[in-house]
């Protein structure tokens, strides 16, 4: 008996289902509805159509002849409007009514449109079907066309790459910190972004949109949260999809996020099945085609009365942008019970990361070289133990069963003419020869052969050559690397950040071959500092890479409360300021008020929740953060100077205030404290500060590199100058030189001991260099000479409050 089957939606899932159904040879009278005015085509391939690598005709999966042979009644361009389950009928939008024995809902999903003001303007489109694709292709024919794509996920990037290939000027606006964050970790996201930016596609991450601008009903641009306007002729929103459940809901089927189906793809009505992106199975919804094909097979079997079960499996992702090779599968979050195997080849832009748990592969992310992706994916699906090949796993199948994975053995096996240092063209033989000639340390090798003396990324390899050549005589240099995440020293990292123009943390992790996915509490603050010091305008300071005191702009106390210390410029205060401090102490019940060794007043024991409010109050009285917590400028201690003191030679207080106002807010490798004394009696203890100025009749003696903490050391004379302006100029230049060169957590006296005062003097005596240092300092200060208290009180106050309080509601 021929039964009537109605299928709603001619998409990827239903197309596959019909193939299986007809293969089984049952007798069905099929009517196929599709809202799009065409039959089944390969939606995935819209991207190659957009980029011009394929035509629409090439991606049609079922043509008119196919439907005709199987007697399928095609109702393309017609939407089903209603289902009446009681009478087993559907009604089309035109009002026509058809009966079914079985019904399959395969309506896919709807692209999500963020309801930004202006989202309904003409020229705001999604990326879902051929119409959208043609719209983008047409834009490419326009002169100097501009487009904005909101969303840096798979679809958004394929749209952007395709538009770009058509000659359109494209900007991608992405809310998250890195591209494709659901499929990629930051390192791979960084490489992908680098590739796209290199092609000329603009990419803005961590960026929020405010509104879509238009004129005469047509889109003209996108305004971002920060006020920037990106002009555009077309705006593509690719921010996600929502299962298209409208019909299921209307029909009263069980619907959650999608239409509920069981393992047989049957909905809550036994006569209705559903497949594709519109379904929800065991709490999961679907956005990739592989599981939909499994569903299609099960649905066809169920219709034919055969047993079959849909089982969810791992899925893998690839981006269909020619030249961007990436692969991701499984779960790649890190964890205690998980092991990471990371391989980075900065020169080729390759990054591979495997995640193991209980000796099984559970996740993989790859960029640049994805040839082994499917092999890893099959290992993952099989769930077999990889213990045997653990050490060489990352090198892929070609390596298995072959040579041993011992890196030393591999290096030992290299021929003499194998290149070790790419920058300086040094091969293995030269290094071995240098060792035979007596070079016994990495420094010797650098000096004699230049190997590892430039970019430094081959340092590990050079050391392996040394180990292989010297055998037990070679002891790897004592741990002076930043931390366990890298073999590089602080100095190397600083130099490479500048030389390779690395401007983000993921860039550092990738290009410098970090062995962990995102660093640790030791390297993160250091790298964050280096980046903000070298790229003040481009790099965005990362609060989460800062120690608690610098993140919360207050010193944490042993009981978890904080201290609050407003600035008192040069140690000068006023009755009004003192009253405001007293009022704040009363209002926030501050247990201890103390005069510090730095000439100001400390309010100790303030609760974290109260910080934004007490800051606000102090701000109202004109006071700002004293940065008593920062690796940055602390205090400028002064004495009363010639205004009052009978021995004073210059206005030491005034100079102190000027210096503090110039330097405050700047971040430095370690803290920086200044002192200005009005005469050599030195009441401001200037001769043991990081920079100490002693006023004399003839002008100012500028000393640097003093210490009075764990070490005590007198300053060394940097220069004698005649005017205040010169004293300030030299001081700022010294601080900037320190900012640009010192290792994180070295106070100036330690840094100067390493580079030598002569070198510092030589650099600073050059007028042009001093001016350049001052200029760079001011550029950085244009970002950082701002009161963080005011900023946090205004824009981050909620972060200081508990996220929730669920003790109260417990009251019975």
């Amino acid at each position, binding site marked *: 008996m021929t039964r009537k089957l109605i299928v709603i939606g001619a998409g990827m899932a239903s197309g596959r289902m019909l193939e299986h159904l007809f293969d089984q040879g049952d007798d069905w009278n099929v009517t196929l509805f599709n809202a799009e005015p065409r039959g089944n085509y390969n939606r995935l391939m819209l991207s190659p159509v957009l980029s011009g690598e394929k035509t629409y005709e090439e991606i049609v999966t079922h043509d008119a002849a196919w439907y005709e042979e199987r007697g399928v009644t095609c109702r393309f361009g017609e939407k089903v409007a209603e289902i009446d389950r009681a009478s087993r009928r559907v009604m089309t939008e035109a009002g026509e009514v058809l009966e079914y024995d079985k019904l399959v809902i395969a309506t896919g999903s709807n692209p999500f449109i963020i309801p930004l003001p202006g989202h309904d303007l003409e020229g705001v489109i999604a990326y879902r079907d051929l119409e959208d694709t043609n719209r983008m292709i047409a834009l490419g024919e326009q002169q100097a066309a501009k487009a904005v794509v909101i969303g840096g996920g798979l679809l958004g990037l394929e749209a952007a790459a395709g538009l770009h290939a058509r000659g359109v000027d494209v900007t991608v606006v992405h809310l998250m910190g890195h591209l494709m964050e659901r499929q990629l970790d930051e390192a791979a996201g960084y490489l992908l972004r680098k590739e796209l930016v290199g092609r000329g596609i603009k990419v803005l991450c961590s960026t929020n949109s405010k509104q879509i601008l238009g004129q005469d009903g047509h889109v003209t641009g996108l305004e971002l949260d920060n006020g920037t306007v990106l002009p555009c002729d077309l705006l593509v929103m690719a921010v996600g999809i929502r299962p298209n459940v409208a019909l299921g809901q209307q029909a009263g089927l069980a619907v959650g996020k999608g239409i509920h189906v069981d393992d047989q793809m049957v909905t809550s009505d036994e006569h209705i099945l559903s497949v594709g992106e519109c379904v929800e199975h065991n709490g999961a919804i679907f956005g990739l085609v592989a599981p939909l094909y499994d569903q299609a097979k099960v649905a066809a079997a169920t219709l034919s009365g055969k047993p079959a079960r849909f089982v969810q499996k791992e899925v893998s992702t690839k981006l269909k942008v020619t030249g961007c090779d990436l692969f991701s599968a499984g779960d790649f979050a*890190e964890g*205690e*019970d998980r092991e990471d195997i990371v391989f980075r080849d900065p020169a080729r832009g390759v990054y591979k990361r495997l995640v193991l748990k209980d000796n099984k592969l559970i996740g993989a992310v790859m960029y640049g070289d994805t040839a082994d992706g499917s092999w890893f994916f099959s290992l993952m699906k099989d769930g077999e133990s990889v213990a045997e090949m653990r050490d060489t796993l990352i090198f892929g199948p070609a390596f298995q069963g072959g040579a041993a994975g011992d890196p030393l053995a591999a290096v030992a096996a290299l021929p003499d003419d194998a290149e070790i240092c790419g920058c300086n063209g040094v091969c293995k033989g030269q290094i071995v020869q240098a060792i035979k000639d007596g070079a016994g340390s990495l420094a010797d090798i650098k000096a004699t052969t230049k190997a590892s003396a430039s970019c430094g990324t081959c340092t590990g390899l050079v050391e392996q050559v040394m180990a292989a050549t010297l055998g037990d005589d070679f002891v790897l240099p004592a741990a002076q690397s930043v931390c366990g995440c890298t073999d590089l020293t602080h100095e190397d990292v600083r130099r490479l950040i500048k030389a390779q123009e690395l401007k983000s943390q993921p860039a550092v992790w990738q290009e410098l071959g970090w062995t962990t996915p995102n660093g640790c509490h030791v390297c993160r603050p250091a790298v964050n500092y280096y980046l903000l010091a070298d790229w003040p305008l481009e790099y965005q300071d990362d*609060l989460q890479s*800062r120690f*608690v005191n610098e*993140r919360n702009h207050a010193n944490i106390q042993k009981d*978890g409360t904080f201290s609050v210390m407003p600035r008192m410029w040069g140690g000068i205060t006023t009755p009004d300021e003192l009253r405001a401090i007293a009022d704040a102490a009363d209002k926030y019940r501050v247990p201890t008020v103390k005069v510090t060794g730095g000439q100001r007043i400390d309010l100790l024991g303030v609760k974290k929740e109260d910080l934004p409010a007490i800051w606000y109050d102090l701000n109202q009285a004109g006071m700002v953060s004293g940065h008593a917590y920062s690796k940055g400028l602390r205090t400028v201690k002064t004495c009363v100077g010639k205004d009052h003191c009978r021995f004073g030679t210059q206005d030491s207080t005034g100079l102190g205030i000027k210096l503090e106002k110039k330097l405050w807010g700047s971040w430095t490798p370690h803290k920086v404290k200044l002192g200005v004394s009005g005469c050599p009696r030195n009441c401001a203890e200037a001769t043991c500060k990081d920079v100490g100025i002693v006023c004399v009749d003839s002008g100012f003696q500028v000393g640097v590199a003093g210490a009075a903490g764990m070490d005590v050391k007198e300053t060394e004379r940097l220069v004698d100058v005649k005017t205040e302006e010169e004293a300030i100029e030299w001081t700022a230049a010294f601080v900037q030189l320190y900012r640009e060169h010192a290792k994180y957590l070295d106070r100036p006296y330690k840094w100067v001991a390493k580079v030598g005062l002569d070198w510092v003097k030589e650099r600073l005596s050059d007028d042009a260099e001093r001016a350049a240092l001052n200029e760079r300092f001011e550029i950085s200060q244009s970002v950082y000479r701002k009161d963080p208290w005011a900023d946090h009180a205004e824009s981050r106050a909620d972060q200081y409050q*508990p*996220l929730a309080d669920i003790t109260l509601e417990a009251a019975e």
Partner: protein
Amino acid sequence: MSWIDIGHIDDVPLRGARMVKTPVGCVAIFRTAEAEVFAASNSCPHKGGPLSDGIVHGRKVTCPLHNWVFSLETGEAQGADEGRIATYPIRLEEGRLMLDAVAVGKRSAA
């Protein structure tokens, strides 16, 4: 288990933490990745350091007072230090943070 909505994942900075007051004391909510969170006691077993003020790296947190490091999965102190923080079930539902109310000492979630 009885899940209680305590906020949105975006309220917690990436590789950062926020604190929640509960009947068993302060509980820290850690966000280790774009869509990965953990809940554990906010109080360090060493000298009570507030862990939600620590640096979050990998699936670990470093105490802000004396740098003890804890696994957020098992609660165990890492390396040479010995100690453990309580961990609590938490899950993500469409971006909402759902904490197990019973585990943090509420008799009913309603």
